C-alpha cells in the first residue's frame, strides 16, 4: 500500500505563472528506494518540497497514509513523519553534530526508548561517522561528513519516509556508494520509504524505482 501518493499534482511558483509540475501521479511505498530524476529545472526539488510538506501543490493532492497533507498540520507532518536531507544539508553551524541530531529529536516531540544522546551516537555509527565527531561543530566537518550528519538527523526521529535532495551530489564515488548503501538498508531492512532526488545515473540504477519527471510530464 502506498504511504505517499501524488494525485494530479501541479505546481507553479506564481498564481498564473509557468507550471513547474503538471498533473503528476505517482505512488510511493514503504521498503523501496525511489529515484526522482530529470534534467535541471524539471521540478525535482519542487516535487521534494511538495512531498515534504514544505509547500503545497497549486493543484492536485499529496496524500500521506490516505490523508491529503494540505488538511493536516504540515509542521507536525515534517517533524514526525518525514525526514528531509537537504541538498545544502541545512545543519545549524553553531551546534555540534550531536546537538543537531538531538534538536531534531526534540522538535519531533516523540518519546524515545533510549537516551537521545545514545540514539544519536548509534545513528552516527550507522552513517559511518566516529563518535568523536559528535562534539564537533558542523563547520569543522567535510562535505561528506556533513551529508552523513544530515542523514543521521533525518533518521533521528524514526520517520516513515526519508526524502533526500541530491544526497550524493558533492561526494566522491566511494562515499556516494556508502551513502546509497545506507539508504538501501533503511529501505530494505527498516522498511522506510526512501525518495532520492538525483542526477546520478549510478544512484538511479541502484534504486528500486525511477520516477523520471520528464517522462511523466510528457505523458
Amino acid at each position, binding site marked *: 500500500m502506498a504511504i505517499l501518493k501524488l494525485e494530479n499534482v501541479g505546481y507553479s511558483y506564481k498564481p498564473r505563472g509557468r507550471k513547474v509540475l503538471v498533473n503528476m501521479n505517482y505512488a510511493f511505498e514503504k521498503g523501496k528506494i525511489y529515484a526522482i530524476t530529470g534534467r535541471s529545472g524539471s521540478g525535482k526539488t519542487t516535487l521534494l518540497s511538495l512531498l515534504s510538506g*514544505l509547500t503545497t501543490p497549486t493543484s492536485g493532492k499529496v496524500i500521506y497514509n490516505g490523508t491529503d497533507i494540505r488538511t493536516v498540520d504540515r509542521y507536525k507532518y515534517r*517533524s514526525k513523519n518525514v525526514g528531509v536531507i537537504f541538498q545544502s544539508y*541545512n545543519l545549524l553551524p553553531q551546534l555540534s553534530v550531536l*546537538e543537531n541530531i538531538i*534538536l531534531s529529536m526534540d*522538535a519531533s516531540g516523540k518519546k524515545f526508548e533510549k537516551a537521545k544522546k545514545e540514539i544519536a551516537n548509534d545513528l552516527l555509527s550507522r552513517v559511518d561517522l566516529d563518535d568523536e565527531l559528535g562534539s564537533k561543530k558542523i563547520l569543522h566537518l567535510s562535505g561528506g561528513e556533513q551529508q552523513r550528519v544530515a542523514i543521521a538527523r533525518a533518521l533521528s526521529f524514526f520517520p516513515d519516509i526519508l526524502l533526500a535532495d541530491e544526497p550524493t551530489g558533492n561526494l566522491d564515488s566511494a562515499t556516494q556508494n556508502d551513502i546509497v548503501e545506507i539508504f538501501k538498508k533503511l529501505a530494505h531492512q527498516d522498511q522506510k520509504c526512501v525518495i532520492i532526488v538525483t542526477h546520478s545515473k549510478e544512484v538511479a540504477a541502484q534504486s528500486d524505482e525511477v520516477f523520471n519527471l520528464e517522462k511523466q510530464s510528457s505523458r
Partner: protein
Amino acid sequence: MFVIKNAVLNISRSIGRNVLIAIIIVTIIASSAIALSISNAANAARVAGLENLQITGNIQFNRNQVFAEQQENQSGEPSEDFRSGFRNQIQDSALSFDDYLKFTELPGVSSYFYTDSAGLNSASESLEAVSSSSNESNETGGRSFNVMGMFGISDFNLTGFSDDQAVTKAQDGTFTMTEGEVFPYDSADNNVIINSQLAIYNSLNVGDKIQLANPNNAEEIYELNIVGIYQNNNQSNPVGGGGGMNNMVQDPANAIYTNYKTLEAIIANSVANKIDVQIEVGSRGSFGPNASESGQEPEYIDGTSELTSNIQFTYVFDSKEDYDAFVAAKDSVVLDGDKDIANYTVASTDLTTFESSLVPLENLSNFALTMLYIILGVGAVILVVVNLINIRDRKYEIGVYTAMGISKPKVVLGFATELLIVALVSVGIGSSIAAVSSVPVANAMLSNQISSMENQSESEQTQFGRGMISGENGPDQFGGGGNNSTPGGGPEQTMGNNGFSWRSANVSYVDQLNATMNFAILGQLLGIAILLSILSSVGGTVSVVRYEPLQILSDRS
C-alpha cells in the same frame, strides 16, 4: 519544555550576544528601579505625612478675588469709587463669632478652637514693654484709633485662648511655663501669664498685678493677675528690627496670654464705655509722616475709642479627606448681613507647610518618573533594534527550525523565552544594583534638589534685600510684620493673609528619602522586563517567520 530547553541552550551558545542584551536590560532595570523607588518613597512619605498630620484650617477673606472683582467693575484709571469700594469690602469682611461657629457644623470638622487678641498699653510706670530701642517710649493715648485704614499702635498684645489646643497653636509659637501655671478657661477671672523676658524686664513675679490701658482711652484701665510666667521655645527675634517703627506689640516678649472669656469681658467693657476721640492723620499708628514731622498743619479724623479685637478661629480635621469635605461644603454657610461666602476661602497653614516641605521630594519624584519614561522609551527602542538585528542574523536558524517542523508560534515563543530568561536574570542583577544604590542615589538627588531650591530662595532674598532675615515669623516684604492689636484697624490682618502669602517663611523640607526596593517595585520591574522582552523579541521574530522556510533557506542557498 522543548522551548525552554532550547532557549537555555541557545543562550549558552551565544554568551556574547546575550551579555550585550543583559547589559542593556540591567541598565534599564536599575534606572527604572531607582526611579520607581524614588516615586514610591515620595508617595509613601506624602501618605505617611498626611496620616500623621493634624490639619487645621482657617476661614480667610479672599482679598485678591475681591480686588480683582472691583477691578473688573471699573474702567480706566482707579477711581475714588474703586478705592472706597475695596476699602468698604475689607472693612466689612470681619466675620463674627457666630459666623465662625456656623462653620463648625460643616462635615469634617473634628474640633475647633479660637483666640482673640487686642492691643493694650501700660497703665502704670512700673510696667514697661520690652523694647530693643530706647526711643520707642510708651506714648499712651491718641496713637491707636478706631478709624478704618489706620493701624493703632500699642505696646502689649493681650491674647485670649479658648482652650489648651488654642494655646499650643499660639501665634508666637510654643512655650514652656517657668513659673506658675496656665489659667483655666471657664471664667473671666483676669488671670494672665506673661513672658519671662517681660517679667525680668519689669521685675514681675507670679501673684503680682499689672495694669493695662486702652491705647485710645488712657482712662480705660484693666487690672490683670499674673498667674504664670512662660518662656517661648523659639527664641529667634521675630520682629523686623525696629527701623524706627514701634514694633513692640509684635515682640513675643510683650505678648500677654489670658483666657478668651477675660478678653471677651474686656472688649465688652470697652465697647460699653467707648468715647469719641480724634486722631491726627499721619501720627504714629497711621501711614506716612505726621504733621509735626512734615511741618504741615495737623489734620484730624473722628473715631471712637473702643477696643477692637482680632478673632482667629481654627478648625481641626482628622484627615485630608475631612479637610477637603469641609472646603467643599464651605459655600453652604450663610453668613450674617450681606457678606458673600464666595469672598471667603479656607486656608490651612499645616497643609501648606506640609505641601511645601514635599516640594523638593515631588520635584524629584516627577523628575524620576520623567526619567523612567525616557529610559523605558529609549531602552525599548534600543532593545527592539538590537533584537531585530540579532533575529535577522538568525534568519537561517529560523528557516531550519521551521523546515524541521517546529511551528512558527513555537519558534517565536522560543526566541521570546530566550530574551525573557536573559531579562529575568537582568532584573535580578538590576534590582540588586538598585537595592544597594537607590537610597544613596535618591538622597543625593534630593539633597541637590533642596540645595537648588535653597540657592534660588537665597537669590530671591538677596534680590529683595532681605538676605539676613530668617526665622519662622520673619517680616513681610515691607518689613511691617503683622500687627494683631488693631483697635479700629478692622479685620485686615485677620482676613487679608492671602495678600501676604509671599511672606518669607522657612520651610523644613523633607531631606531624607527611604527609597528602598520592595516587592511592589520588583513586580513592576518584572512587568517592565516581560513587556520589553515580548515587545522586542516577538516584533523581531514575527518579521522573519512570516516567510516560509523554503523561502528563507533558498535565499541563503
